[in-house]
């Protein structure tokens, strides 16, 4: 089943590489150049952040104008129940050999947990990281005008907390992608575009 159009795959690859690069350089900045020198980490982090901003614009506009947006729509009715079912499957059912309560279709490719987490990350955390990142790259404007002289501290807090949440998301996301019919099948799907297994 062809599930991932070319633009989504290219964007996903770019986004994944940028996130890994930004997490790595971000940790280097936070812990003062333990692996690579601080000046190089800052420069690469800034350039990565600018490219991530452009990449996010592609995702945002792409989702506005293409049918892909339907995969990010969440119906509140029954949401908690279906999320609960999915969590029970991931934590207990999968070990008993139960069937996945969610069936992937062309119209609905994300299960409730994926949907909620993707929307949370892509429509809340990433925008917050981008806005606060720009605020720290060009200090004295946004947060300082909105909040005052300590605005940069607030920006810094939001940036690092959001970055931490995205890091956790990346770890869990990559692990859950090994839950396909074979451990590598879902990784192949996002490369080829064809979905080849139940997760």
């Amino acid at each position: 089943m062809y599930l991932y159009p070319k633009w989504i795959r290219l964007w996903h690859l770019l986004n994944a590489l940028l996130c890994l690069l930004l997490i790595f350089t971000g940790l280097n900045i936070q812990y003062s150049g333990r692996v690579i020198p601080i000046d190089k980490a800052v420069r690469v982090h800034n350039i990565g952040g600018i490219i991530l901003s452009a990449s996010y614009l592609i995702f945002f506009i792409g989702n506005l104008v293409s049918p892909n947006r339907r995969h990010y729509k969440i119906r509140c009715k029954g949401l908690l129940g279906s999320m609960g079912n999915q969590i029970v499957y991931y934590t207990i059912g999968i070990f008993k050999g139960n069937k996945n309560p969610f069936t992937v279709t062309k119209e609905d490719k994300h299960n409730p947990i994926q949907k909620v987490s993707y929307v949370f990350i892509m429509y809340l955390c990433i925008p917050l990281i981008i806005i606060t990142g720009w605020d720290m790259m060009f200090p004295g404007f946004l947060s300082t005008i909105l909040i005052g002289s300590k605005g940069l501290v607030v920006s810094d807090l939001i940036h690092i907390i959001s970055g931490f949440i995205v890091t956790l998301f990346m770890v869990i996301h990559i692990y859950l992608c090994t839950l396909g019919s074979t451990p590598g099948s879902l990784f192949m799907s996002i490369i080829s575009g064809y979905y080849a297994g139940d997760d």
Partner: protein
Amino acid sequence: MNPIPLFFARLSLIILFLICCLPVLYGQDIVVSTQQETEWISDFYEENEQCFRCHQTGITPSDELTEDEINNLGSHGLLFSREDFYNSNHRTFACIHCHGNDDTDLRELADEGVFTCTNCHGFDAASDQYHFAEKAEQYNKSVHANLENVNFSCWKCHNPHVYKSNIRNTTDIHDTITYHNNICLDCHSKRNHVPTNPENDSKIMLEHHNWLPNQPLHISKVKCIECHTQIINSDLLTHLILPGEQAKMRCVDCHSKESRLLATLYKFQAKEQRSKAGFFNGMLLEELRIIGTSGSSYLNIASVVIFLLTLLGIALHIYFRVRMNRTKLTN
């Protein structure tokens, strides 16, 4: 069509509200209340005017002084601003207190030797609180002491005609930072070349600091000496200037609970904040005030614990998956 459903619009509003609440915790400006200085007129004003007739910046040629003589005075650093002098630490002095006595021929004063701070300040009880003798010791170990062969002395940074101790009396920490950094830039910028390094100019100074994220912000908010001196806890303003290559370049030197800035520049403010906000709140604010999460041990610990728990969860999941697959194969 907007892909964000109502549920997340509400969630975003709640988070936005919480973000707006943050300034209540962290957004308070720190105000150091000090007694405002009032305009002060010297007892020796009239007496000093005799000196300022010739030794004042901006004077024009007259019967007393030719243009060449003015230029000569200027090139030897012998022209002073009257306003700066009467705002300086030595404003209560008459010029002749240091420059000879009533019988001295004023024209010969320039030939007298240059004083160092400890000539007057080192060995009397009144000066004890300023630790001049200790500062002299620190200075002797500093990189500046090596420049004495090119006429470097206390005067280079603390010209007694204009120097004003700033940090103890400031109402605006940023004025203090600017004032102190300008002292360094007097030599370390194109305004006045460092004698040993004629290539040095402000452009080179900025290039040396290119590694700093948000360079303009750092330079305007941190004193040069915060990174270029060795911290001595008992001394607010250490004079042990380190060679350039030994300057502090690690973010956590400032952006941490043990920040160098809290040992020096923001020491008074930190105490002030603690007394205003209470000890516990003060400690929290103190940690986050300059930087952010990177400086908060509480958030650092929480993030490590959450991350390890996540990895533990994944490890357990893998273990049960492997066990299930083995059971399947056995059956």
